[in-house]
């Protein structure tokens, strides 16, 4: 692990100054990306650290989001932030606990599909039943408050999102350095060996799964409050797929990677849709995005975080690329 502190300081410092530099649209954009970065981090905990490829992360995100809206009082008063946020997180964690308890019995590609199945179930519940308000979604008219914090104020909203991402990032890096985190790495590298040493892997995996769901629910809550609007597409497998794209793009096994991947993915989409850059071709931005993703897989299999090392090796003229050193520790 090499000096994550400087990264954290510079990166979050820049993010804190951003709203001052950019206009309100720029701040909105980065706020949204930060929420997805938090969500990507939650998935990284499962995929990168524990080796559990979950294709259903969007469900926990969506549950947190819907909880935020469904728990708003109907009389038009502001929801209490200190109550609704933990409730949303708890609900998402509860669903994650249930799904994890059942899915962790399966392995490999079956695990991927079972997580997808449970995510689709949640999707159809909000999509088809009156509970979720149907395909057009539901609105929140008054944003939560807590004392002097009023999330209707964009600065407060940005601040809360920034704080959440920081807390999430720091919490995860501490967690992964702890014995719990080491156990997860061990499970990722060789589960059989862990079991052979007498480790009971199931509780660890379940804990990681639930924690990941809780973080995703937190991100979902922030999304719902920021936009004031939720709809079933927040639980769709397309979002789960995009999340996987983000963390792979950034670089698996690195928390920086998830955050960078979220930024890169969102900014790429902005770039390709910009008529200023692409003119009338901008409406075919799906093509540009698809080709870029494929190129990244072909030429940057270890993601953006490995890019500097890759470039360095190219420039120093080495022919045989060494595989990046696989350490047990999750890099921050």
């Amino acid at each position: 692990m090499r000096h994550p502190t400087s990264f954290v300081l510079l990166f979050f410092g820049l993010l804190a100054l951003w709203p001052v530099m950019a206009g309100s649209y720029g701040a909105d954009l980065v706020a949204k990306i930060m929420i997805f970065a938090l969500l990507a981090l939650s998935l990284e905990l499962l995929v990168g650290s524990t080796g559990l490829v979950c294709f259903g992360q969007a469900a926990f995100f969506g549950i947190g989001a819907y909880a935020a809206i469904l728990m708003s009082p109907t009389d038009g008063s502001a929801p209490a932030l200190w109550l609704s946020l933990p409730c949303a997180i708890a609900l998402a964690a509860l669903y994650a606990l249930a799904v994890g308890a059942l899915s962790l019995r399966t392995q490999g590609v079956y695990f991927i599909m079972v997580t997808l199945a449970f995510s689709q179930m949640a999707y159809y519940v909000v999509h088809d039943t009156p509970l979720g308000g149907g395909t057009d979604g539901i609105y929140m008219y008054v944003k939560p408050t807590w004392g002097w914090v009023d999330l209707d104020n964009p600065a407060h909203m940005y601040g809360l999102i920034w704080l959440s991402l920081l807390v999430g990032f720091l919490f995860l890096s501490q967690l992964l350095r702890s014995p719990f985190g080491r156990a997860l790495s061990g499970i990722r590298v060789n589960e059989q060996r862990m079991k052979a040493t007498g480790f009971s892997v199931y509780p660890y995996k379940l804990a990681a799964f639930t924690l990941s769901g809780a973080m995703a629910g937190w991100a979902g809550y922030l999304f719902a409050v920021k936009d004031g609007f939720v709809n079933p597409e927040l639980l769709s497998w397309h979002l789960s797929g995009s999340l996987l794209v983000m963390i792979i793009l950034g670089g698996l096994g690195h928390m920086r990677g998830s955050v960078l991947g979220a930024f890169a993915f969102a900014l790429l989409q902005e770039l390709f849709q910009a008529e200023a850059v692409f003119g009338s071709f901008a409406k075919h931005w799906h093509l540009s995005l698809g080709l870029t993703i494929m190129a990244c897989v072909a030429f940057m299999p270890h993601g953006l975080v490995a890019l500097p090392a890759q470039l360095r090796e190219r420039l120093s003229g080495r022919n045989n690329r060494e595989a990046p050193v696989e350490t047990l520790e999750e890099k921050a």
Partner: protein
Amino acid sequence: MDFATFLIQCLNALQYGLLLFLVASGLTLIFGIMGVINLAHGSFYMIGAYMAFALAPAVSAIFGGAFFSTFAVGLVLSVILGYLLEWAFFSYLYEREHLQQVLMTYGLILVFEELRSMLVGDDVHGVPVPEWLNGALTLNEVMTYPVYRLFMSGVCLLLAGAMWFVFTRTRLGMMIRAGTSNREMVQSLGIDINLLYRIVFATGVALAVFAGMIAAPVSSVYPGMGNSVLIICFVVVVIGGIGSIKGALLAALLIGLVDTFGKVLLPQAAGVLVYVLMALILLWRPNGLFKD
């Protein structure tokens, strides 16, 4: 529901299940047998449907005849496409992890959809049923059953039989199954494993395209049609057990039943039921219905 209606619904379930198997057959090969997660499977299905629409006038003009000639041309084109795709992209993916396959094929979906939009446009199209299959069987005084659907079901059964035969009773099938269990061993036995994989992949693509072409008169041709079949195809393969053709067939029939009767008896839950089925089966048998 009276008995006659119940029987008709069973027929609907059977036909839908068989159609699902047809559409998922290509994925059974590529995902089930070769182990490559191919999210672009829905795109190949869409290419088949659009080919049925776009090629028909051209083929009639050049070759005369319509139905079978369009099929033949479409199949040849799809085998070529599959071969090229495998050579250009997918061959890199066998060694890589599932995640990278997900990413690469996710990018492919975007590329194919946009290419389709640029080449053929975004309108909805219909493909006519060939005259000689355009009849209907009378079921009762109100309903008839289109012959074309029976034709499709027949084709599905034939296909299922053919796949099973090739995989279990021929040398080629044996080599493929050996190759997926142990690639190096097969190679050291002197069999060109790369060529083998290319053939299997091209066949998988061709099957998906073939399904799109056959289903086009019934399903109509529209943007985004690939996305709607994609997930259900994965569900079929996973429920059936990865690598098992008879599993995929059984899974498809089960889904047909659940979907058909679900729509009628529990319309509110209709969307969820298939996933509940998948979750239940995987919890009972974590490796699907039939292990290979």
